[in-house]
């Protein structure tokens, strides 16, 4: 088990130092964007989704999958853009 700890510590040194600064910057920008997203989208989406959930379960299932997949693609693009904007050299390493 000491071998496990040493292996993890050795491998963690460089990436943590490299990731921490861009990560904190990314979190700050990301948090602001997500807060806007909550108020503009999720807050108003709640009532409509509840209505569909109660009256049309098939449409709700399709919407659920579409929304989470769509958000997955959208946030992937957003985090990728943020990472490349904050730390342009990130992807080159």
């Amino acid at each position, binding site marked *: 088990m000491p071998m*496990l700890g040493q292996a993890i510590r050795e491998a963690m040194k460089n990436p943590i130092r490299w*990731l921490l600064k861009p990560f904190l910057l990314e979190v700050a920008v990301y948090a602001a964007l997500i807060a806007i997203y909550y108020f503009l989208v*999720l807050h108003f989406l709640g009532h409509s*989704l*509840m209505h569909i959930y109660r009256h049309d379960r098939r449409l709700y299932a399709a919407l*659920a999958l579409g929304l989470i997949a769509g958000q*997955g693609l959208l946030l992937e693009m957003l985090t990728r853009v943020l990472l490349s904007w904050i730390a342009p050299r990130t992807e080159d390493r």
Partner: protein
Amino acid sequence: MTFPIAGVTIAPTYLIAVGFVVGLLGGFFGVGGSFLAGPALFAAGVPMNFVVGTDLAHIVGKSIVAARKHRTLGNIDTKLGMIMVLGTIAGVESGAQLIQELKKSARIDWVVGLTFIVILLGITVFMAWESLSTLRKQRRERARGRVPKAGREHSAGAFIARAVHRISLPPHVSLPVSGIASISVWAIVLVAFIGGFFSGFLGGGAGYIRMPCLIYLLGIPTHIAVGTDLFEIIISASYGTVSHALKGNVDILIALVMHTGAAIGAQMGATLTQYFVGSRIRLAFIPLPLIGAGMMLHSLLTGHPPK
């Protein structure tokens, strides 16, 4: 924030934090992380039927983020993933059907729970032995002045994959991305079926079973196993999401909020894999099945079944 579908009030920051941790683990290890997200949702007051379905929905979004990142890193074997789809879907359905049959028995929680614990402990012991043996062997070779070939992955458990590659049942395919010259399609479908079966039987993406199977049974390099496993998790979790949503067990708003934290964690986890060699990723993976086994044991002893 109130989530009207599940009828609960949860702080979004809590969901984002849980999502971030699960996303980080998922991006790094190629697992869905349901063994952590499930209990965290339950602890926040989400009813158990919503826990399973909502967790699956959040896994879909998170795995899309992590899989896309792994694709840019060249860690997804698309040909392997497409062949696995058939076995995964058949496995998910078979696992779910078995659960329906076992529900007629009064001891279903114990049957499912003990199966889960035995399998997870077996994976833990084997992976600990294999990754430590590989690291020791690499150190010995370095001490003798032998430099390992770049891009080639070493594994003390490679003999299992070599035996699987010798299976002569046609048709055979080559997997150039994974460095495999020839392998029986049936071996791939069987591994996918096993992963899908446990996903349907135990819930979640079952990455903790599929990932070791890809590495040790098929001989897929660890980084590609992580990426390809995430690709399969998207399929099995999507199937599970639709199935649970039709039954009314998904609160998609909870999943969407949780996923905002998971997206950033998954990106970071996937990026981190570049800095670890395969044997170290496998070594660091070991606590995950142990945590899962511990949680299942706790659920059985306290009378709160996981499903």
